[in-house]
């Protein structure tokens, strides 16, 4: 137990010290009025705000946002991987849909926010739709690139063994696409948090994004940043979890990343 703690301290000691330093500096900056506290509040003020608003934050808004994030993320990943596979298998699909996918990423949300409301109303789906819009692109690009990258020679070998295109996909290309897919997934996980936040701006009555916007519009920086801190923690947690999954998966499957070469 002791040694475990020591081990963790050793690994995360720097990081923790650094984080503490940043928080301290930040606090000092605000206290010494280098930054007005209504623009960035001091960490202590944020902490107080989190404590005071703990009920609405944790009991009302966090669960709502978390639900949207998970739903949106799941659909993004599922849909993104499916699309990437289809584009990989059928060239015309790629040529038809890839441009559309890119277009979807360059449309400013203000231009289509009424469309979302029109189609999905104020249900959870409008937020999920925004989350998907923001999170699925990295999954598509990374998975598609990963599928194409796979070493050609393994594919050739399997073809001489009479593999069908689908078998080629499942036996060679998907395993080899895993590292790239995971890079995309890590991006998607983080983006889905901001996606849900933005989705809530389109019209919501709960959620950390909704909360943060309301607080922002009444210049209540403490509460605003209380929500932001929760969103960041959520993002980091999800990211950490996916990184862990990635490490396990890639270690188990021995694909490329067999540890860092020192």
């Amino acid at each position: 137990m002791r040694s475990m703690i020591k081990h963790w301290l050793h690994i995360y000691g720097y990081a923790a010290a650094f984080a503490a330093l940043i928080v301290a500096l930040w606090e000092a900056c605000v206290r010494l009025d280098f930054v007005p506290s209504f623009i960035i509040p001091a960490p202590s003020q944020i902490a107080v705000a989190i404590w005071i608003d703990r009920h609405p934050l944790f009991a009302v808004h966090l669960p709502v946002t978390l639900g949207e994030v998970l739903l949106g993320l799941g659909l993004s990943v599922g849909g993104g991987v499916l699309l990437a596979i289809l584009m990989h298998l059928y060239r015309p699909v790629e040529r038809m849909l890839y441009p559309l996918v890119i277009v979807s990423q360059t449309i400013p949300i203000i231009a289509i926010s009424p469309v979302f409301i029109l189609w999905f109303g104020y249900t959870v789906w409008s937020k999920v739709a925004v989350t998907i819009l923001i999170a699925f692109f990295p999954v598509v690009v990374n998975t598609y690139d990963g599928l194409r990258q796979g070493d050609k020679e393994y594919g050739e070998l399997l073809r001489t063994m009479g593999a069908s295109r689908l078998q080629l996909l499942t036996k060679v290309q998907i395993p080899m696409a895993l590292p790239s897919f995971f890079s995309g997934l890590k991006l998607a996980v983080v983006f889905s948090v901001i996606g849900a936040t933005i989705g809530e701006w389109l019209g919501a009555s709960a959620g950390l994004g909704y909360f943060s916007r309301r607080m922002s519009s009444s210049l209540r920086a403490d509460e605003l940043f209380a929500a932001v801190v929760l969103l960041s923690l959520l993002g980091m947690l999800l990211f950490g979890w996916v990184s862990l999954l990635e490490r396990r998966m890639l270690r188990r499957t021995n694909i490329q990343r067999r540890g860092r070469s020192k």
Partner: protein
Amino acid sequence: GCSSKEANKNNGEAAAGDEPLRKVSVMLDWYPNAVHSGLYAAIEQGYFAEQGLQIEVQMPADTNDPLRLVAAGKVDLALSYQMQVLMARAEGIPVQSLAALVRHPLNYLLVPTGSGIQSPKDLEGKTVGYPSIPTNEAIIQAIVTADGGDFSKVTMTDVGWDLIPALATGQVDALIGGYINHERILLEKEGHETLAINPVDYGVPDFYELVLAASEEGVGNDLDVYKKFWQAMIKGQQYVAEHPQEGLGILLAHEKSESPLDEEIEEKSLEILLPLMDAGERPFGYQDPASWQEAAQWLLDHGVIQQAVPSDEAFVNLVE
């Protein structure tokens, strides 16, 4: 409403509460604040239910969305701005104003006290920040010109949604597009005293800041529903005017569990708002055709809209 009584009669012994309520969705102009306390009071006090209505309140993503969505039939009613209703009509969007909530501008020119700017002409050589809404430019142009200044010497900067930081951090010298019942109070709270200059004093028409709008189609089909809605609103507003503390309390309580409002700010806000919402002789919400006429003409004159909008088609009065 007589019609609601009829409905009650038709249903015989059925109690009013059992009868299915007519659902009406209202999209606010922005997140709930003191200006909406009449609405929330009416909901809480059951004034809508009395009229056989059930209100669903929605919030927009952007101040431009309410009009578009009401025109598209996604919501029944929307809170918006008189000028924007006219601009929408100029763009062929079929919306009509039904009632005026705030009868005078809230949008003042704000300048930090002690900045040396006393009247619009002092803006020469200064930077004025405004949110992307083009009417603000027209207002500045109008007041500077009316005050004998040269508008071409004023720098206009679009400050997006960050109105307060723009002024508070000294990025701009003056601000248009901020409300005296919101931005000004907030600035004050953060220690930035401001001088508020009313555009009306410099020839800008005394337009309605906040109106209730519906689509033309909605007005055609559901005018009676909207009338009932407004009856409840009148009662709600009256309640708030008579009991400001309780009226605001309802709003605060409503928001408490999710996004607690700042009581002090909203109190001050309501204090400013109540006189501006009062229609005097006329019932609450009454719209004066002259106001619409004037506003439409002003927009046209200042190039905000390119074609004339027949002002009498832009509104329908729910109360006389």
